[in-house]
């Protein structure tokens, strides 16, 4: 058992570049829940909008990743969108943008 965990950890470590910048699976589950349930409070559980705008893949087509990541981390002044940087890393925000582009919540 201990051996297999060690080899698993080794293989994860060796996976290197592919794994870099990806949140751990447990973190991904937290982020997915946060995205659907908490972001969903304003943007809708199905991302069809609410107090905040719809975040369906088609709504994001023309928005570059960097702009969306910056919006998540720093908020949008003059709107109800808060800065999430106290709770989310840049890596987390990138994962969320990818999830939104894949149609999370649909």
């Amino acid at each position, binding site marked *: 058992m201990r051996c297999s965990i060690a080899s698993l950890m080794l293989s994860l470590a060796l996976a290197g570049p592919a794994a870099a910048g990806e949140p751990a699976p447990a973190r991904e589950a937290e982020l997915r829940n946060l995205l659907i*349930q908490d972001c969903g409070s304003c943007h*809708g559980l*199905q991302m*069809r909008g609410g*107090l905040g705008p719809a975040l369906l893949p088609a709504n994001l087509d023309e928005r570059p990743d960097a702009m969306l990541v910056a919006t998540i981390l720093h908020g949008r002044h003059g709107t*109800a969108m808060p800065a999430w940087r106290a709770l989310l890393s840049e890596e987390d925000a990138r994962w969320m943008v990818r999830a939104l582009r894949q149609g999370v919540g649909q």
Partner: protein
Amino acid sequence: MNRVLSALLLSLAVGPAIAEMRGTGDLALVIERASGTVQVVETSGNTSLARVAGLGDLSHASAVFSRDGRYAYVFGRDGGLSKVDLLQQRLVGRVMQAGNSIGGAISQDGRLVAVSNYEPGGVRVFDADTLELVADIPAEYAPGKLSKVVGLVDAPGQRFVFSLWEPGEIWIADFSDRARPQVRRFTDIGRNPYDALLTPDGRHYIAGLFGEDGLALLDLWDLDAGVRRILPGYGRGEERLPVYKMPHLEGWAVANGHAFFPAIGRHEVLVVDTTRWVEVGRIAVHGQPVFVMARPDGRHLWVNFALPDNDTVQVIDTLSLAVIRTLKPGKAILHMEFEPRGEEVWLSVRDEDRLAVYDTITFTPRTTLPAHTPSGIFMSARAHRSGL
């Protein structure tokens, strides 16, 4: 023959029809936001009676009750208005009335159900029996511009009162003459009202402002006095914390002539004198308050919090204005609803897929019930209160 008949009558008399007769005064509806379902629960034995499916997207859903307490009207995010029979525990009506909705209200006489919509921005009013459209009130604040509508409540005199997020306005729609509703508009009430409440006597409508520190107060007994700003600048110009969840104004507490409100972007509950409507204190709390709910007798307030503090609930004594308990009921406490006489309070523990029922004297958990990502809990006793 006679004996057979009387035996038959006896068996009918004690049969299932009698066993199933019950009132609705101890029933409640629980929103299961992610699965588009609601649970019907009862608060005498704290059990679940049924799950009703097919209500659509229930993010931020809420419910009001018919005056006989039998039917719940559920307002879904996707614009669905659903009518649930609490006794037969099934969906008996449903209309898709808009693209995106936020809440609703039922009129004083129970005949009209109003829904506040984000898309298209405005209020639509339906017949409570048939769910047929009675009136459409677009929130057109400038030519061609519709506002999102928030803070919709019913008020005495067959009125609905609501706030417009974009322009910062309060409107009153008077349905005394159902065929010809009259709308009165109050402009320049403050930036971005986010929610509102009606005092239990139906007199004061108070909208919280997101775009500035303060609240907007309208005295429905004296409309010509207009909207008054209260608690202006309560943030003292300090930069507010990021607001990860909009507070809700719904629970209303009055004790010793004080009312209590969540502060926006601050770890504080604001205390207001209800005769002069000025701030008389503030209570430091664990996080940013979302709901500040009064136990029905007004002696205690239960407060829940926005991320990252949504695992905590605090209890405030309204006499001493002190926090007397800090509870950790579970992950993501979204809502709290007191039983009508206040001996127990139901909590939604969203991220643990359960409801927790607490004793409000000992502050200990009594029951836990499974529920899919529960959010709002609505007791049928709301049927008899204005503004809920």
